[in-house]
């Protein structure tokens, strides 16, 4: 069995202990989506502000294990300031790293994973892949959420 040090890398624990971009954004103008991991009961809410096709702000609320929380924290740091097509490409690349079938086409834009590569070890613990991808699937839902109107 792979050692736990493959899973609990220092940078992951750092994001778990001091999560980035915690909080909420007012909806509207922000959009949001809620995700659940039915396996463990973890819940996450992702808030997104998108201006001119750029993710100008992102916030993460909810509770979860070290893997889901650190993945959400790293995700939030990675997507802030990126364009929506870049974010979609990053989601695809991340899910590919989690050995999830994302279709034959490579991501349309090559966005570096950076710190997110630390989560690679999760693949050796298949039960935890759902923890790592929860924030990312919720992010996709938030991107696809109807753009709220003030009326």
């Amino acid at each position, binding site marked *: *069995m792979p050692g736990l040090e493959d899973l609990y890398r220092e940078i992951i624990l750092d994001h778990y202990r001091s999560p980035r971009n915690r909080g909420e954004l007012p909806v509207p103008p922000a959009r949001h989506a809620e995700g659940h991991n039915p396996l463990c*009961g973890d819940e996450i809410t992702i808030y997104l502000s998108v201006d001119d096709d750029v993710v100008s702000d992102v916030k993460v609320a909810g*509770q979860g294990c*070290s893997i889901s*929380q650190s993945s959400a924290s790293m995700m939030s740091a990675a997507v802030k300031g990126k364009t929506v097509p870049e974010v979609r490409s990053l989601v695809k690349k991340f899910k590919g790293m989690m050995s999830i079938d994302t279709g034959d086409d490579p991501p349309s834009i090559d966005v570096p994973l950076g710190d997110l590569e630390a989560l690679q070890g999760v693949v050796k*613990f298949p039960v935890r892949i759902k923890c790592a991808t929860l924030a990312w699937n919720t992010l996709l839902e938030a991107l696809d959420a109807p753009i709220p109107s003030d009326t």
Partner: protein
Amino acid sequence: MTIDWDTVRADFPILRREIDGAPIVYLDSGNTSQKPRQVIEAMDDFLRTSYAPINRSAYRLAGEATDRFESARASVARFVNAPSADEIVFTKNATEALNLVAASWGGANLGPGDAVVLTHLEHHANIVPWQMLAAKQGFELRWVPLTTDGQLDLTDLDRLLTGAKAFAFTAMSNVLGTIPPVTHLVSAAHDAGAVAIVDACQFTPHNVTDVQAWDADFVAFSSHKMCGPSGVGALWGRMELLDAMPPYIGGGNMIADVRLDGFTTAPVPAKFEAGTPPIVEVIGFGAAVEYLESIGMAAVRQHEIELTRYAIDTLGERYGDDITIQGPDNVEVRGGVLSFKFRDIHPHDISQVLDQHNVCVRAGHHCAKPLMRVLGVNATARASLYLYNDRSDIDALADALDGASDIFGF
């Protein structure tokens, strides 16, 4: 008679399996139990020598299979002290048994203005079927709350039961281990004119079950949690209720006659057993209750009381305030189901670290999300005990928890 628990443990072949050179420490029996060789051999033997359709064919082999199937029904009936084997309906599991009661009895008896009382301890299997039916038939659901130590708060029970037509409750919580006073709850239900439906899925594997002493109306349980195979469970119900209920699933075996303009139903239990049943699993279920009877459920309960006390004391002495075991502290009113919080480490991470030491516990919401909300958590880590566990398993759990502290920096 004193039981040699080492011999009991040796009956379970899987507990001799090693992963990465070390034995498995199985502390997830509340989820599903391991199987003794007596059950495995009974199923194997049946498949090799006696497998045939039941209730359908005239040749001797089929007759023999039918006899063995019905003899398993008699064993299950005896195990819960049912007055008659015909009152045991085989289902897929406890979930299906509870759905059967809700859909068939509830479908025929509940409507606007009626109420069903449940408790905050319930498993989704005893919540969602009632919610599904309430959405269709428009009756009210009421909830018995909990005390701070996870027992039912019965202060308002009489008021909650006023005008209620059914009271459906667990006989043992799968999260907190709480064992409510079933006989008292049944009699309160009856005083209010309500039927009493007992989810005994966690209780029956670990205690003497006596449906007549409870005076209950329906009792549901699952084979896989009591040393038997998955794929089969049982509903015990009072004959006069079962008899009056409409069928649940339609098909073969459940009919007396079918014509182009309708059908008539077979007598209970066949009325509720449409289609080919899980034949081999029923044989295994019968072998499981016979195995448990050979040890004695009072002895099993005593063994688990002692082990639960040992677990609460050992973990408490070792980790003090860093560990909180949820549910009642009094082992007389709880079973060996230990949900715990450990140093703010998420249950999923705890279970991951414990798995490194082959310690199998469940982390999650345990299919009891309303209870999780009452407890104010998303998830708990849960160690659950059974007759094959011993002190070494508890010690292994206590040792392995240290590893969690190392990683998460305490």
